């Protein structure tokens, strides 16, 4: 099985299509669920008129002339009525031509920019003045930045001296207009972000304006600047819907990438590239496709009945269609380790909002930082001292269920059975040393004779083998008064029996454990 993820549906070297990425679009033109490719054919020979072509699969099904060199082709839906027929928008110069069913439907021209007052004044003089003074006025015109001049003035300054007179005479009532050229177009959804729901058209002009147009009424809904400094848009990419939220990424000729969001009047620069971007596409995949010739244009989307198709046009006019395999996998199988690291980095911890108490506490902590630290340190030392004292006490009295003596490490467990007044105290003693035998041990039960009667208080123990527990039973009964009552001074606090493990020749017991005895159930005794 080959590793390739793309199926070569077509590589037609004779297609003779010359286009750019922004002049290609895929859409369901006839609403028959068969997506077609719309591409504007732009010949490098200016004599040949540009053409708008529709490809069904691999065949040209429609071919028509365009009135000028297009800068962008976009297909969009204007309303929610059925059947859903897309319209095709083609930007030519300062105008957008809308086609419905591939027939001209509407022409929109972007509004004119402000004309310099100086320019208007010069034209007034030009019209009224004698031809001898033209040169002076034209020199004045040249003082204005060429890009800020109207088309008429731009034409005038390029003319020869003898042509000027005729030109001015032809334009005695000059209509000064500065129409910005459209450089790029893209679309976003109007409100519902669903395939085939109505769109808004986004237009980027040479004058660094971004216009968002409602294509149903052809009104400009929002206008914004690309950036706060001079930046000419070149490529556009957008996502989201106009009513909810949207993002427009603009690549400029100066090499910066700007982002424009809803309600912003000006884009913000996010990245500054060293060289201007040549193509921009929002893709979820990354893979290299090797094509024999230089790729001039590409687009990705639905084509025909396939959902994921990449269309490439190379510089020798070949049209290549690549279909993404159904079984194509782009993510490498992740190992468990990388998964966990990814999870931990991607995981967003739900941080609750800062409460008023929290803020007040933070302020207090800031103000009294040294005092808080000192108090904490002294308390910490106090706690350590307390812990050390207790440890010494335990070591001194052996009051623990473990023997602290490293020579004979022992573990003691005690269990009390019975309801009383007679109890059975089971003591389990285990040698927890790995190798050494613990010998010469004896056990002693110690209790207040006024409270408890113990049948056998003392026993010598056999040597203890490591790991084998020794179990001993002791009968303990409460010393009741003659009229079957508990001893008067017996409380829950002092009803205890101490279990001592003593080693021969050692004055200190190895273990001195306290067993808390339960209160006897006297009702049972009475009945």
């Amino acid at each position: 099985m080959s590793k390739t993820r793309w199926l070569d549906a077509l590589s037609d070297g004779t297609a003779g299509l010359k286009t750019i990425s922004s002049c290609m679009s895929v859409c369901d033109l006839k609403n028959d669920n068969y997506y077609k490719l719309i591409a504007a054919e732009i010949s490098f020979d200016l004599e040949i008129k540009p053409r708008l072509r529709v490809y069904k699969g691999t065949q040209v099904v429609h071919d028509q002339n365009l009135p000028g060199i297009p800068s962008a082709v976009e297909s969009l839906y204007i309303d929610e009525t059925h059947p859903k027929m897309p319209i095709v928008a083609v930007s030519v110069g300062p105008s957008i031509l809308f086609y419905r069913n591939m027939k001209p439907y509407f022409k929109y021209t972007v509004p004119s920019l402000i004309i310099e007052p100086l320019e208007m004044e010069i034209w007034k003089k030009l019209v009224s003045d004698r031809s001898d003074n033209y040169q002076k006025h034209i020199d004045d015109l040249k003082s204005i930045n060429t890009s800020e001049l109207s088309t008429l003035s731009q034409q005038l300054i390029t003319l020869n001296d003898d042509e000027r007179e005729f030109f001015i005479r032809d334009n005695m009532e000059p209509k000064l207009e500065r129409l910005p050229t459209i450089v790029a177009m893209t679309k976003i959804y109007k409100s519902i972000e669903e395939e085939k729901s109505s769109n808004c058209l986004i237009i980027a002009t040479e004058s660094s304006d971004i216009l968002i147009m409602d294509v149903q009424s052809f009104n400009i809904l929002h206008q914004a600047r690309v950036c706060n400094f001079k930046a000419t848009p070149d490529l556009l990419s957008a996502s989201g819907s106009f009513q909810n939220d949207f993002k427009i990424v603009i690549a400029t000729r100066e090499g910066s990438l700007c982002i424009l969001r809803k309600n912003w009047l000006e884009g913000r620069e996010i990245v500054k590239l060293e060289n201007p971007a040549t193509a921009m596409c929002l893709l979820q995949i990354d893979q290299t496709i090797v094509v024999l010739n230089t790729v001039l244009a590409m687009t990705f989307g639905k084509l025909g009945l396939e959902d994921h198709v990449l269309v490439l046009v190379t510089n020798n006019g070949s049209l290549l269609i690549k279909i993404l395999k159904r079984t194509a996998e782009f993510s490498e199988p992740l190992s468990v380790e990388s998964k966990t690291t990814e999870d931990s980095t991607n995981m967003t911890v739900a941080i609750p909002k800062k409460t008023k108490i929290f803020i007040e506490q933070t302020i207090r902590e800031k103000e009294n930082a040294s005092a808080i630290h000192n108090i904490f340190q002294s308390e910490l030392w106090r706690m350590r001292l307390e812990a050390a004292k207790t440890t010494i006490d335990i070591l001194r009295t052996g009051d623990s269920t473990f023997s602290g003596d490293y020579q004979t490490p022992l573990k003691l467990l005690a269990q009390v059975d019975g309801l009383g007044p007679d109890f059975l105290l089971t003591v389990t003693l285990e040698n927890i040393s790995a190798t050494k035998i613990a010998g010469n041990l004896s056990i002693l039960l110690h209790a207040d004779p006024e409270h408890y009667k113990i049948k056998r208080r003392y026993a010598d123990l056999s040597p203890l083998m490591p790991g084998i527990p020794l179990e001993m039973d002791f009968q303990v009964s409460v010393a009741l008064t003659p009229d079957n009552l508990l001893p008067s001074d017996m409380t829950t606090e002092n009803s205890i029996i101490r279990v001592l493990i003593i080693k021969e020749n050692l004055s200190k017991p190895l273990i001195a454990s306290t067993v808390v005895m339960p209160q006897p159930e006297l009702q049972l005794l009475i009945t």
Partner: protein
Amino acid sequence: MVFEKLFMKILNKERKPKQISILIIGLNNSGKSTIVNFFKNKDVRKSVSIPTIGFNIEHFENQGVSFTAYDMAGIGRYRNLWEHHFKTCNGIVFVIDSSDRMRLVVVKDELDLLLQHPDLKRRRVPILFFANKMDCIDALSSVKIAAGLNLEKVDNKPWQICSSNALSGEGLQNGVHWLTSQIKECVLTPPDKEVYD
């Protein structure tokens, strides 16, 4: 008398037509449901077919063999359901839209996946290809489709390609006739024989 009745019963059981399951697959919009529709009785035929979701089960009979046809959905995201029926099917009908030149590579890809599938690779399952929509002007001929799909490389399974028009029914009977005779030969006579390549 009693013995004779019992004997007849056993005999009848033996003669009863075996249930044969057929898998009908192909890309979306190739005409699978329309082909199945043609084999139904006239009174239950549908006039319009809509894209199948998941799969539909249909029953019909041909030459004394009763078929259960699994009409699978051809939409990309349902194509992974096909392989679940590979193990149990006795015959495959692969429908191709011969007018959709662009997607012939997709057909080839799906066919290769099918032929390489462990449940089918070693089984001798007859495959019938319908080069459907032969009435379209730009339809490819069945010979060209067979060449495009590299069918001559399929040597461990009997296959046949028929041009068809599911709307008029042209070519369908021929194809199904071939499939039935193949199934009779492959499945009903000897027990399912394994082929090793």
